[in-house]
């Protein structure tokens, strides 16, 4: 459902993403791993049509990101890093704005809100403004916004960053529940998370894909825990 071909993006002299290619199918949860500045977020932003690639292309549900970005954005749920929101809006106002923009109306809107609000456990803050929320709640509001149109493809940039252990567990449970009928890419630094939810993992460093495998295979191959595998690959492997 997602197909990425030779995607490349530079910022000035820095090459953020250097020709990465991969495909993700329905039912897969792909974990993007890599050190800070490896190009994970940049790659995700390009697939979500926020950034334009310098070269290469990608398609989501058959729509090309360069030729038909609006259709891509329609079929995609994207949670950006740090879950940016409009601070002066209430949670309800924000979700209604997203429904407006995604043209979810009437009974459908009510059904969508009734579905995502309990799913992300944000009932208690529904009438609060976003700026009064804690980090964990903000992220869950962002997640609710990304899920409101029940997209086939989800791209989540560090969805559990800043959450407490209980909330992390909840979000992981949520992702596991959706995994079967969606195609999900998440980026994370937390390797236990990869083991808990990802069916496949790609390790990126300096904009290049170093490894594309499953967590189990990696552990077998290096005969070590994922933490150690990650360190071995990102610090020693020649590019």
């Amino acid at each position, binding site marked *: 459902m997602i197909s990425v071909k030779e995607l490349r993006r530079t*910022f000035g002299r820095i090459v953020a993403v250097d020709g990465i290619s991969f495909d993700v199918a329905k039912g897969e949860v792909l974990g993007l791993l890599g050190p800070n500045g490896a190009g994970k977020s940049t790659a995700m*932003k390009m697939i*979500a*049509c*926020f*950034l334009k690639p310098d070269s290469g292309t990608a398609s989501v549900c058959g729509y090309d990101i360069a030729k038909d*970005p*609006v*259709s891509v*954005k*329609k079929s*995609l749920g*994207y949670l*950006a890093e*740090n879950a*940016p*929101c*409009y*601070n*002066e*809006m209430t949670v309800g*106002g924000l979700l209604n*704005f*997203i429904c*407006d*923009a*995604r*043209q979810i*109306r009437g009974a459908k809107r009510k059904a969508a809100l009734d579905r995502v609000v309990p799913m992300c456990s944000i009932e208690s803050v529904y009438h609060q403004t976003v700026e009064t929320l804690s980090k964990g709640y903000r992220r869950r509001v*962002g997640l609710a*916004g990304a899920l409101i149109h029940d997209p086939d493809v989800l791209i989540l940039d560090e969805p559990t960053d800043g959450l407490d252990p209980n909330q992390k567990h909840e979000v992981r449970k949520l992702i596991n529940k959706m995994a079967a009928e969606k195609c999900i890419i998440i980026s994370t630094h937390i390797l236990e998370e990869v083991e808990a939810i990802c069916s496949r993992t790609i390790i990126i460093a300096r904009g290049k894909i170093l490894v594309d495998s499953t967590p189990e295979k990696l552990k077998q191959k290096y005969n070590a825990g994922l933490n150690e595998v990650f360190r071995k690959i990102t610090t020693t492997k020649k590019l």
Partner: protein
Amino acid sequence: MNGFMAVFKREFKAYFSTPLAYVFLVIFLFAAGYMMFSRGFYLMRQADMRTFFSNLPLLFAIMVPATAMRLWAEERRSGSIELLLTLPITVTQAVLGKFFAAWLFLAVALLLTIPVPITVCYLGDPDIGLIITGYIGSLFMAGGFLAIGSFFSAVTKNQVISLVLSAVVCGMFIIADMPTTQAYLSAFLPAGLVKAISQLSFQGHFDSIQRGVISFKDLAYFVLFIAGWVWANIIILDERKAS
């Protein structure tokens, strides 16, 4: 509801969900009224709104950039632009939605000066047509300044820089046809260019609308002016949204 309407609605509501709208309205209404009555309304002994409209360009040159400065700078600083532009909305729809929401807000501010024409009508027998064309001219002028402000708001993440840059540029479009400016420019520019610069000025076009003449030339000037800056806004935003 398409993307344009969604952005338009959210943006217009956003003005009133922060103190910004109320602070702006109070200062604008006070200053507009004060400037009118302190600058010769009673001395002229004539029941019209000329003193009111003639002070508006200067007031707008400061107040309109203040309304526009948050449009994109705020969005980029807080990162919410990433939320906005990953919704199924094009950059054009987003820019137009925000622009028209801010313009409607300025129209509301102008509408709230309604006690001024009421006062004038109470004091004498003014030409209503002149008052209406004066308001039309003011609305177009506000739109022009707003287009400048919106552009500079997309140029920088810093709202103060955006305010200063756009106020300066707005000021330049006001003073372009003043005799002193013209005299200064004609010292080193060819006469044709000096004439062209004076034609680019807001003041002349605004004055002629305010005098009760809505000519195609003046309307075309404002429409093209606004379209040009908004178009530049779309391009610069598409280019710099992520940086």
